[in-house]
């Protein structure tokens, strides 16, 4: 039994009262995006209703208030990641944006022809395509860590791949399609041993796992607020300050400059060097409330409860004839991907949707992974702290209905 009061937590998420096709919503698409608690919704409307102003430029009261709320969020995130310095927290619009920033600045400046970049079979497209674009431009070589049939990375192969040619490693912390938790400490240490820098795609990890970028010694860590009860269109890129300082700016414009003349512009310091233009102030302000919400519940408590849900769902789904769980890694977050014999994942998704159950179906933006697994896609149920075993029972009943209708 969890020490969390799940019924009370559910009341914090107004969307959970929605009726979908006449049924109570069962929201099992949390890996795509999580729902938002009232404190986050209120933070957004409070910001716009009471202290909306542009930041870092006005000297009036509202500008001061907005600026300090904005910078409070940075401090909150610094603590959330245990970063050494506040200016190592760069606000982006999401994981994708953070990865592109690193590929386009660090990558373009420091990588050259013949250098090798290592990613893994588990990557989301957003941690594949930016590196392919860089490889195309620079003549770098992309190498891919293989997985075994359970969905774990084959780390012996990774170690064999590493050499003085390896200049960058960019790997997902937690797989969105299979839930695999990767041993990123091992990956980082081995990359550093050959002098390579490492980016961790933390999109799926940030809401489930306690992250300590200093203990991990990660060079970069990227995640999206919308997957941890925060707003969409807001993300974080952590980078070690010496590396960020050595990187050229990404986008040009206001906020990121120190002095502009038509002859030459000098750039602002970290983190502003990477935050050109008026940022997404409201969503940055609101993310603090999402993180406070998580901290109040306690990440360990959340993880423990989600593990219970994962265990229960794995047991219950395994009993369904013809159902195969895809992804049985040693360490997993609360994601269950599955295929049903003789039924296309899309049909599973459509019939569950009719019953008010939201799952994700398809390739989950991981087409290379799906082709490695020899599947057109899967159906994926991903759980958050507001989900219940009763809802999992509805999923099981829903899948039985799918079988009855389609087979």
């Amino acid at each position, binding site marked *: 039994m969890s020490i969390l009061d799940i019924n009370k937590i559910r009341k914090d998420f107004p969307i959970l009262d929605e009726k979908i096709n006449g049924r109570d919503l069962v929201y099992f698409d949390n890996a795509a995006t999580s729902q938002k608690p009232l404190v986050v919704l209120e933070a957004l409307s409070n910001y716009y209703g009471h202290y909306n102003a542009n930041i870092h430029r006005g000297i009036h009261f509202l500008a001061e208030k907005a600026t300090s709320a904005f910078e409070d969020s940075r401090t909150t995130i610094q603590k959330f990641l245990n970063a050494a310095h506040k200016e190592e927290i760069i606000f982006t619009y999401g994981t994708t944006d953070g990865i592109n920033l690193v590929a386009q600045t660090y990558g373009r400046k420091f990588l050259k022809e013949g250098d090798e970049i290592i990613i893994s079979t588990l990557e989301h497209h957003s941690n594949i395509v930016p590196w392919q674009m860089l490889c195309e431009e620079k003549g770098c070589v992309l190498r891919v860590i293989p997985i075994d049939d359970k969905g774990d990375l084959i780390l012996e192969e990774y170690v064999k791949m590493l050499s003085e040619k390896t200049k960058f490693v960019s790997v997902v912390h937690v797989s969105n399609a299979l839930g695999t938790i990767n041993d990123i400490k091992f990956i980082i240490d081995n990359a550093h041993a050959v002098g390579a820098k490492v980016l961790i795609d933390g999109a799926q990890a940030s809401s489930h796992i306690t992250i300590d970028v200093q203990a991990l010694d990660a060079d970069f860590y990227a995640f999206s607020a919308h997957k941890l009860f925060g707003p969409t269109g807001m993300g974080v890129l952590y980078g070690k300050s010496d590396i960020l300082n050595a990187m050229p700016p990404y986008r040009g414009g206001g906020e990121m400059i120190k002095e502009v003349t038509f002859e030459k512009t000098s750039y602002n310091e970290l983190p502003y060097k990477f935050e050109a233009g008026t940022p997404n102030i409201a969503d940055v302000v609101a993310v603090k409330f999402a993180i406070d919400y998580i901290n109040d519940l306690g990440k360990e408590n959340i993880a423990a409860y989600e593990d219970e849900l994962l265990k229960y769902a794995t047991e219950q789904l395994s009993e369904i004839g013809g159902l195969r769980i895809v992804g049985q890694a040693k360490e997993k977050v609360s994601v269950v991907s599955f295929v049903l014999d003789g039924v296309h994942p*899309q049909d599973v998704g459509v019939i569950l949707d009719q019953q008010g159950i939201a799952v994700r179906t398809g390739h989950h933006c991981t087409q290379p992974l799906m082709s490695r697994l020899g599947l057109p*896609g899967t159906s994926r149920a991903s759980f958050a702290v507001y989900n219940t075993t009763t809802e999992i029972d509805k999923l099981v009943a829903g899948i039985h209905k799918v079988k009855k209708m*389609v087979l």
Partner: protein
Amino acid sequence: MTINEIQDEIIEEFELFDDWEGKYEYIIDLGKKLPKLSDEFKTDDNIIKGCQSIVWLHAYKQDGRIHFEADSEAIIVKGLVSMLVKVMTNHTPEEIANADLYFIDKIGLASHLAQTRSNGLASMVKQMKAYGIAYQANV
């Protein structure tokens, strides 16, 4: 029958269903009954892009009329595809190019034409009309 007469017939059939289950069971049944498209037509060129499941559409012209054959990996899409084929096949290129497909909306399945779920179906309608236009040009 004209395109609209066939559409009206489908709409009438669907009025019999008062819950989603009956409706979807019927669509699944249509999907199961649709003859398999022969492998020679399951080419990359015949794949309709933008669907979660693969949809193939094959068209040919005979005696001034266009005929469609189609298939899909997913059974519900296949059922929907089967209705589109039923409505659109064996008409002149002009009729197909100018068809106003209102039945999908009327039978309460418009969400299947929505952007995310299966804009493959929206693409399929587009592709069918494109055949209509193309076959008008080369008589």
